[in-house]
């Protein structure tokens, strides 16, 4: 990052200085900065945020605030650029289909995992909460993801996860995807119970698992 102001903006975002970051973003836009350069700044800042999260320096509140800052910056920049969106950039990235399993309405953990996968460059498709096995199957057929993430907070999710994994197998799609589970009380025992491929205790373990399975995202 050659430009001093660009570097400053990266640090403001990474240091959770929301107001100053947005002011400087506007200043850069007013000075005619390339919108794509600002999006690059966002990515650089998120690399730092992700690293600090992994290092236990940052926690969920910082991720949520960083996400808010990014959303606001994107909204400021988007009117200025032709729609060469992130989605296109991510076509070649690994695709992860994620959802909270049937019967469970909790989405905080799922949203954090989705966010961390997204900032790490993965193309994440979020099916929401209370997702039926059939909805996962339909989405696998339509989107062909490499990885499926099953989230659940309640203990009823153990059975919903197992049913979902079984339904994916019965639909003949089990070999097509790796399945990871996480949230609430999920552990090694539940991994074995559900027949998934991996479980994680936090968002970084989901990111690391994706990296292990399909490599760094583009």
């Amino acid at each position, binding site marked *: 990052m050659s430009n001093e102001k660009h570097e400053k903006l990266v640090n403001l975002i990474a240091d*959770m200085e*929301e107001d100053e970051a947005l002011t400087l973003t506007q200043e850069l836009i007013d000075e005619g900065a390339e919108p794509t350069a600002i999006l690059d700044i966002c990515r650089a800042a998120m690399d730092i945020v992700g690293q600090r999260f992994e290092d236990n*320096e*940052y*926690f*969920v*509140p910082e991720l*949520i*605030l960083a996400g*808010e800052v990014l959303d606001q910056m994107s909204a400021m920049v988007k009117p200025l650029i032709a729609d060469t969106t992130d989605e296109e950039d991510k076509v070649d990235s690994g695709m992860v289909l994620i959802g909270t399993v049937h*019967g*469970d*309405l*909790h*989405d*905080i953990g799922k949203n954090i995992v989705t966010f961390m996968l997204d900032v790490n460059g993965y193309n994440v498709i979020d099916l929401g909460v209370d997702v039926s096995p059939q909805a996962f199957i339909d989405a696998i057929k339509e989107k062909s993801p490499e990885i499926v993430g099953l989230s659940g907070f*309640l*203990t*009823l999710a*153990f*059975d919903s996860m197992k049913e979902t994994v079984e339904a994916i197998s019965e639909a003949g799609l089990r070999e097509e995807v790796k399945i990871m589970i996480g949230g609430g*009380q*999920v*552990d090694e*025992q*539940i991994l074995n*119970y559900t027949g998934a491929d991996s479980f994680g*205790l*936090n968002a970084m373990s989901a990111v690391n698992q994706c990296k292990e399975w399909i490599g760094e995202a583009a």
Partner: protein
Amino acid sequence: MTPKDSDRDPKELYQERVERIADTVALKETDRVPYIYLTRFWNAKLADMTSKDTMYDVEKSISSNRKAIELLQPDAFGAANYAYGQALEKLDYHPLEWPGGGAADDVCFQYIDKELMVPDEYDEYLFDPTAFYLQKYLPRIATGFEGLKHFPNFPTLSEWNIIYNLRAFANPELQESFKTLMEVGEMVDHSMTKMTEFIKEMIEAGYPMAIGGFCKAPYDHIVDFLRGSKGGMLDMFRHKDKLLETIDKARLLLNTNVVEGAKLVGCPYVFIPLHWGLDGFMSPDQFNEFYWPSLRQTIHDLIDAEMTPVILWEGDCTTRLEFIGDIPPGKAIYWFERTDLHTTKDVLGDVVCLRGNVPPSLLNTGTVDEVNAYCKDLIEYVGKGGGFILDGAASITDEAPIENVVAMAESVRKYANK
């Protein structure tokens, strides 16, 4: 055959159980580790009912509770009564989905995470929480409360204005709310009256109550019921001073009547389940700024009033162990969900009675032998020298096979010290 207490004098048993728990809280060694449980709808499963059955019929709720207590013979019981289905329906209560009210018949209820107070309203809450609740908050959480927005704000009135403002009670929306609330009140009263009779019956049968009161960590209350999870976390950065001021205010409000309520029912155990202070959800610095000081004050206040706080530390709280020992020794129960109890015993064993933590994964999907082995280890290591109450990590999960729960309950007798 594991010996049971069925044939003994209930009064003697009651006293013995009360003392066993009190001594355990006081970190004294007892004849055996006590077993206590709380559950939501496992009772229903035991009694071949759906969750919805027990939410819509207090008699079914009671009979399923009775069946569980008689089967498990706990040292104290938490009566699971959620027989408020009709009341919730009549009220059209929005923050919850429950069996029969948006959720399937055989699952647990779930709270919906939502922002119910915007940041600009912190000042309104701080200035006059009652007015904020009547005029804004309650109408947002249930259709039955909507008319309350017309309720006169009496402390702002004087002289004839008090009389003029009684006109509000002619407002059809306010009248409609009153009618609804009177009906809902009757429904809740019916359920609670029946349950109170049942509790007396169980006490006479020799079983002490496990919970006499309920309280919340102030930060959790603000996140769970006012600002929502996202708002509560963002406010640490965007509205830090207001958040801290509101935490102080909420603490005072939440603690009001807790002690009196517990004294009225004659049970000193005040249950405080924690939601947002666990590892990962906030940093140790944030924990020590936004979470622990107000919770610690609540714990101290309850102990000063001769209550015994029962804190359920949800999730993994390993990094919190170094801070949370700052309470009077032998006066509280820390119930841990995922935090390793061996480690916790080593760190906090001299300070606080520990409770837990047979994992839901094991209870739901393990074998009886595995449950026995797990409980034996907890009883022998964590229970050594006293100061340990056996329970599930999330008490009894709704889906747990009966034989696994029975194994957990009986293990305290099976692996007794003496």
